[in-house]
């Protein structure tokens, strides 16, 4: 009746909650989900080349209004994707930055963030 399974090795995926930020007061361009994904793929390709671009990055969720997204990527590719995002400096000439808000190997963990607890 009782069964316990401890996952061996690494979990297959890593999930990232990210936000694309533009300069304060700058007019934010309208970005569609497909454009957003293309932008990320471009960023990977410019840093890690063809091998990097061959990995698939899934955009699980994209909120156009806030430019927030949840990405899924295979765990072994996480740090490459992450570094590509870090080195992004502009979107079509407009200064921008990706802020990685949460990283986890459990999608469930992204549904809340205890550092946001605001008591006062």
């Amino acid at each position, binding site marked *: *009746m*009782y*069964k*316990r*399974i*401890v*996952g061996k090795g*690494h*979990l*297959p*995926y*890593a*999930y990232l909650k990210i936000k694309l930020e533009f300069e304060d007061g700058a007019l934010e361009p309208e970005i569609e*989900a*497909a454009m957003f*994904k293309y932008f990320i793929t471009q960023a990977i390709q410019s840093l*890690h*080349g063809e*091998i*990097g671009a061959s990995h*698939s990055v*899934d*955009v*699980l*969720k*994209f909120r156009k209004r806030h430019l927030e997204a*949840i990405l*899924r990527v295979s*765990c*072994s590719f*996480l*740090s*490459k994707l992450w*570094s590509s995002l870090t080195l992004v400096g502009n979107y079509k000439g407009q200064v921008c930055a990706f802020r990685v808000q*949460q*990283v*986890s*190997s*459990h*999608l*469930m*963990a*992204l*549904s*809340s*963030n*205890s*550092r946001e*607890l605001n*008591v*006062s």
Partner: protein
Amino acid sequence: MAAPIEKSLPIGKLVFEKSSFKNEKSKHEEFIEDHHFNYAISCILPNCKRIPDILQSSCVGEKSFLVQDLPLIEVISLDLIEAFIKRGKLRMLSHGGTIDGDDCVAVLPTGHLILHLSKDTYQQLGLEGKPSQFPKRKKSKYIVDIDLTSPSFKPGKKGYNRVKWCFKDRLGLKFNFIATWTPSDNEVCPSSLQKYFTMKGCKCKPVKIKCNMKKYNDVLVPDIDPSQVDFDNMDYSYPDVFEWLGGFSCGIDLSCNPDDYLSTYSFNGPTRPPATCSYVQYSGYFSCQTVQSIIKSIRDSMEEWKLPWCSVTVQGFMDSPLSWKQREHGYLNNGDNLYTFIIFPDDSYWLYSAYGSYDLVS
């Protein structure tokens, strides 16, 4: 040039258990009690159009509060130990600092005071402890464990005086604490702890409980068969279900096509016919007692609500120095410590416990 990046980063672990609430050896109650600091409780209720009142009332009625600038010396005062720590389950956690940069403190219901200190504070404080397990090679954090309920921990004894002197005269350590207290005597009100601190001259505030409710129509909910023991011969396995639950909690549209440009996600297992599905998340600070009572009320009402299954997820604080029991917890790029119960109508359950990068798994 491809950068030589370490092949993969260990960023989390997942443990899966299945058992039944009816099973005498089932340790679900201890398991919940051992996870001391609960930040958020969320439930997924398939085939359900509205959140049952009983969930609402037990979460919103939570009596947790914040004590501001409480000097550590107060935590070892005999009054507190005798009146609260020994007569109930007191759980306190320092709030506002991050576990990887600041000093963190926790009081456990076992009467242990855990100080998770940075090297500077540790060396100035002068209490004996051991280096933290994380990070492994560089010793930059230290853990001091003081048993407040030990018979020799009394004013006048050498050990007590030493601790008192360190807290009071060496470093006047002060923290904001979030606290809950579950008295062992039902007739005592849990809020007496708040009164006690107010009496001592500390400002107390209730922790606001935030509530986030969502209703989704026409959701294809996985059809989970709890009797399955062997995942090898199935279309889906336990991590797939956990991923689905996570996706649903984050509000992701899970019905997408695997050939889509945006995402290749798909759930391989069987699904139930489309139905309305409710989701609720309460966040703040919850006692283990509240989690127990929610699980219990869901178990009791499964039949009545006609749920095929129901999931309850409890998320811990990222900056807590412990995950379960006294197992050490840290923060590398995440500080996950959470668990999910999937409860079935026949009283069996699946239990996922998820750990972050700096965690000890038993």
